[in-house]
């Protein structure tokens, strides 16, 4: 944790529901966390635990049937100054922040790009709509430089290419270029390499690391990949069924996991810090978030579950200044 403890984003008690025909999906249930300037903060957890919804909620990108029910997202535009609550802003005010100060990189680059416009145009329009350039044409010149900075091969040609003319890795480079075109402060990368081949994954992660250093970015990284977590992150939050169950700095989490879910998760994937003999799967299934288990949402799968766990939500317990856990075992 670099950053002299200056926060850039503070999420407070966030609740998000999806109103589906089957019922109300309580996707995010009281999530709070802080991202500090200059760090890489990671969200990990099984599929469907709410990582993407959390990420999209930060700039209110949740679309119907989803709704942000409660919470605050405090954004510290200037270090140490008064924050603004992003959830209280108008759509136009948010638009000016999205892509310009807080930008996104999504999972599937093939789907993120509009197939009918070339790469240069899509980079240009992103700068144009934030007033960085005065014409789309000017943007094309800048786009070449941007493509260079994301190590796109042959940027002068590629700038005029359409998405279908690029490989998956090149498309993700283009998406990263778009995301960084307005020099944002915070980049939210939601599984940026999941849709790519293994070798390309490494290249893209190396690129992100390099750009983060060059541009002094803060990164919120969402991933399933514990290897990536160990490689990239400063601090990690483990999510389970719409809640953060544990948060710690990276060494602490791998060495001394406290929550039974975190322990199980670390046993289920190759551990980059501590060698483990045999990978184990976590027994049970991910809960249905329309009828989530009462009390601790993990209790039906937890081998240490007590009576209390079935009825009362565990409090947030700070076991050290950098490590918190939500579990009755530690109260």
């Amino acid at each position, binding site marked *: 944790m670099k950053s002299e403890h200056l926060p850039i984003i503070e999420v407070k008690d966030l609740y998000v529901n999806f109103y589906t025909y089957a019922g109300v999906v309580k996707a995010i249930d009281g999530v709070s966390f802080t991202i500090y300037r200059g760090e890489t903060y990671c969200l990990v957890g099984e599929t469907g635990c709410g990582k993407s919804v959390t990420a999209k909620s930060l700039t209110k990108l949740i679309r119907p049937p989803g709704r942000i029910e409660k919470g605050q997202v405090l954004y510290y535009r200037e270090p140490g100054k008064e924050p603004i609550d992003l959830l209280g802003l108008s759509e136009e005010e948010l638009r000016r922040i999205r892509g310009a100060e807080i930008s996104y990189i999504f999972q599937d680059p093939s789907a993120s790009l509009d197939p009918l416009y070339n790469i240069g145009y899509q980079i240009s329009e992103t700068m144009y709509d934030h007033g960085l350039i005065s014409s789309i044409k000017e943007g094309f010149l800048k786009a070449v430089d941007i493509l260079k900075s994301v190590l796109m091969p042959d940027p002068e040609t590629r700038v005029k290419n359409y998405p*279908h003319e690029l490989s998956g890795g090149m498309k993700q480079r283009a998406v990263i270029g778009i995301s960084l075109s307005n020099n944002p402060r915070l980049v939210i990368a939601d599984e940026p390499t999941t849709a790519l081949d293994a070798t390309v994954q490494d290249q893209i992660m190396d690129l992100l690391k390099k750009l983060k250093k060059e541009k002094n970015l803060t990164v919120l990284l969402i991933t399933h990949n514990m290897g990536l977590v160990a490689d990239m992150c400063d601090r990690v939050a483990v999510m389970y069924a719409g809640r953060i169950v544990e948060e710690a700095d990276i060494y602490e989490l791998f060495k001394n996991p406290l929550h039974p879910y975190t322990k199980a998760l670390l046993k289920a994937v190759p551990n980059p810090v501590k060698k483990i003999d045999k990978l184990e799967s976590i027994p049970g299934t991910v809960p249905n978030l329309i009828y989530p288990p009462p009390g601790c949402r993990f209790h039906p799968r937890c081998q240490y579950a007590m009576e209390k766990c079935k009825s009362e939500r565990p409090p947030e317990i700070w076991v050290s200044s950098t490590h918190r856990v939500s579990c009755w075992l530690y109260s």
Partner: protein
Amino acid sequence: MAELKRFLVRRLLTFIPTLIGVTFIVFVIAAVIPTDPARMWAGGEKANPKVIEQLEKEYHLKGSILERYYFIMYKLFTNQMVSPVTHHYIWDDLAKRFPVTIQLTLIAFIYIVLIGIPLGIIAALKRDTWVDTAVRIFALIGVSTPVFWLAYLLIFLFFTQLGWITLAGTPKPDYSITGVPLIDSILHLDFPMLAQILQRYSLPGFILGFMGIGITARIVRNSFLDAISADFTEFAHARGLKKMRIYKHILRNALVPVITVLGLQFGGLLGGAPITERVFGLPGLGSYMLQAINQFDYLALIGAVFFVSLIYLTANFIVDILYAFIDPRVRY
């Protein structure tokens, strides 16, 4: 652009085998029906054998299939083919009727575009509300209403009761640029003539397009919803594009499938033209075809099929050009 030109020329060349194929199929079907065309033409059971023999010779009825086909096409194109039933030059008749069908289908098509597309967009924007349901029901009514029934109902309303439309004659200006009065009168800014044409054609055009309006509205709705919920739209929001620009992305992507459907709709319109023309007494290719079938005048039928196919191919040709402009993934 040189690429585009090559593509267009190549695309135009595919007209030739298609037209040959279509006319040949119609010819073969006519040729294998076990009747004696010469006898039918000469007056049926009591026909004079001499006349029959003469007709057989004149129209090469005893030759091989290929010979007969070649004979028909050659005579048609050189305008030497006289219908054995009407005793008119077939090509002349077709040329006279061609503009009627073009105008009818064009007007029907305009209804489809002007009503179908906005309805679809509204339904998409108001998805899952009563507006959406109303459009859905309208589309259902469109595909399930018998054309002739609706036609008579509206004739009763607009002709008998209100007197807004005419049901006889085919307005034609005394100048000619394209040969299609509707287009010519617009080019000449001849509004009285245009009004006459619309009085005659707008109801049959609406009837003909009615089915397509609903179908198009549904397709537009769905392709809009697809584009609105697409990942690239979400990313467009995430990178803070302005609202109008996001709509532009959505609109253009939604148009791609819509253009295909509009091209296909044209085929449907041409298929529906015979009934509509018949009901409204419009002397177009469709009623000409019906007449030719009734009189076993397959020579005239093949000629009409040729023209109708030509309209259809041209419509699809235009669709392909639009595609090439809208969608960079189309390779030529």
